[in-house]
């Protein structure tokens, strides 16, 4: 079953075309990695799919709901971990998690239970009463993703989730993301090719606002006659090896 169906999605800012006629289908439970150089249109696409900005033309259907005519319904079933860490600095880890759970309609008892469970899963159990601003960068990022997951979304947008993390923190976060595969549909943007190789089911490459290629890592390397995804990415993005 398809979780995301994108039809001719376009976003223009004046004369600049940020996303141009995007067509794509993502299956339920799939982890889809969206790649592209800076300015390729990845974040604009994520913002349109998460109903943060309206498309200039075209539409996308998430779990059967249109991002144009029914954004409120989509917001209840999806969540996002933005590129920057998005936490309430003066609230504790527990308060941050309970706040988001409450906003997504969980009562205080359920929110507290889910907050403890997800803190355990993301290695935040010992930090529950610490203010978010006092956590390390890696811990803040984990909290940010845990906040996206506590609402039990059916579709999760991860916009460069491991940006700025050290190797250990990245690997730990990969393990957490892997554990979601098959249960949650994940759309991931990243600049790290090893992350894509480790996590994604399929990859889409954007260049100049257009989706140029979609396939598995193996399909992309075969298509470009390259040995690594990084080389395939460079070829498909119009770069020179």
């Amino acid at each position, binding site marked *: 079953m398809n979780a995301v169906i994108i039809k001719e999605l376009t976003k223009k800012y004046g004369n600049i075309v940020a996303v141009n006629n995007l067509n794509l289908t993502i299956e339920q439970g799939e982890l889809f990695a969206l790649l592209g150089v800076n300015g390729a249109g990845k974040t604009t696409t994520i*913002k349109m799919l*998460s*109903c*943060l*900005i*309206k498309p200039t033309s075209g539409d996308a259907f998430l779990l059967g709901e249109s991002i144009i005519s029914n954004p*409120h319904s989509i*917001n*209840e079933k*999806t*969540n*996002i*971990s*933005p*590129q*920057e*860490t*998005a*936490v*309430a*600095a*003066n*609230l504790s880890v527990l*308060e941050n998690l309970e*706040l*988001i759970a*409450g*906003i*997504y*309609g969980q009562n205080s008892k359920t929110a507290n239970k889910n907050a403890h469970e997800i803190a355990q899963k993301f290695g935040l159990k010992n930090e529950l009463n610490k*203010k978010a601003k006092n956590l390390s960068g890696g811990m803040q990022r984990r909290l*940010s993703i845990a*906040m*996206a997951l506590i*609402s039990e979304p059916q579709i999760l947008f991860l916009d460069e989730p491991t940006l700025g993390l050290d190797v250990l923190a990245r690997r730990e976060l990969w393990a957490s993301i892997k554990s979601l595969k098959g249960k949650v549909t994940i759309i991931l943007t990243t600049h790290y090719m090893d992350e894509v190789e480790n996590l994604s089911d399929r990859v889409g490459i954007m260049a100049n606002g257009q989706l140029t290629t979609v396939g598995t890592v193996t399909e992309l390397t075969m298509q470009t006659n390259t040995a690594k995804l990084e080389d395939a990415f460079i070829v498909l993005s119009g770069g020179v090896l």
Partner: protein
Amino acid sequence: MRMFLFAKRNIKEILRDPINLFFSIGFPLVLLVLLSIINSSIPPEAKNTMFQIKNLAPGLAMFGSVFMALFAGMLLSKDRTSSFLMRLFTSPMTAADFILGYTLPMVVMTIIQAAITLLAGGAFGLDININIIFAIIMTALTSLFFVGTGLFFGSLLNDKAVGGVCGALLTNIAGWLSGVFIPIDLIGGAFKAITHILPFYNSAEAIRISLSGNFSYILPHLIVVTVYTIVIFTLAIIAFNRKMNGEKI
């Protein structure tokens, strides 16, 4: 429900900052003590009643509420620039949840601040009676102008710029033009005329009249403040909604 959760978060976020705590509660009290000491040194023949407690206490209640513009603006601006608001924009929260969630904590803080300031005025000779409650309610109402100002600039500017506009600029303008620190009647002329068409003097007067109990004189002041409040809140809601929909302002 969502609005109350968000309001609860906002009040925690503000009160857990010690500087905010000082400016919201401590600063008006410091001014009350200092200006009361100055008042005791003014000879009766000077006929300057500005710092008499019946004028000073309501004036400081108004001046304290000016800081709500700074708190609301800084909080909104930080939420916007740190991506926290972006996260919430993808949640089921509505524009009304956001606007009310930012406004309600400021009104609660104003009520607490005004109550402390006016009750502390009792130590300096202010008559503590039922009118204190009316003065507190009036301060909460007039504070909405400052909350709206904070939300408007918080929707447009980064937190440093909000600090400059709502902190340094607005507090100075409000202090000068409200008659709390400067004798407007003694200066008179164009200065007095300008103060009478702006919301600062009218806010202070509305609170002072509430405290005195002579409500028959309150309407003209209340009309001026209400008009400014409606205008600034309308602008704030437009600016916030455009940000929420990812449109340029």
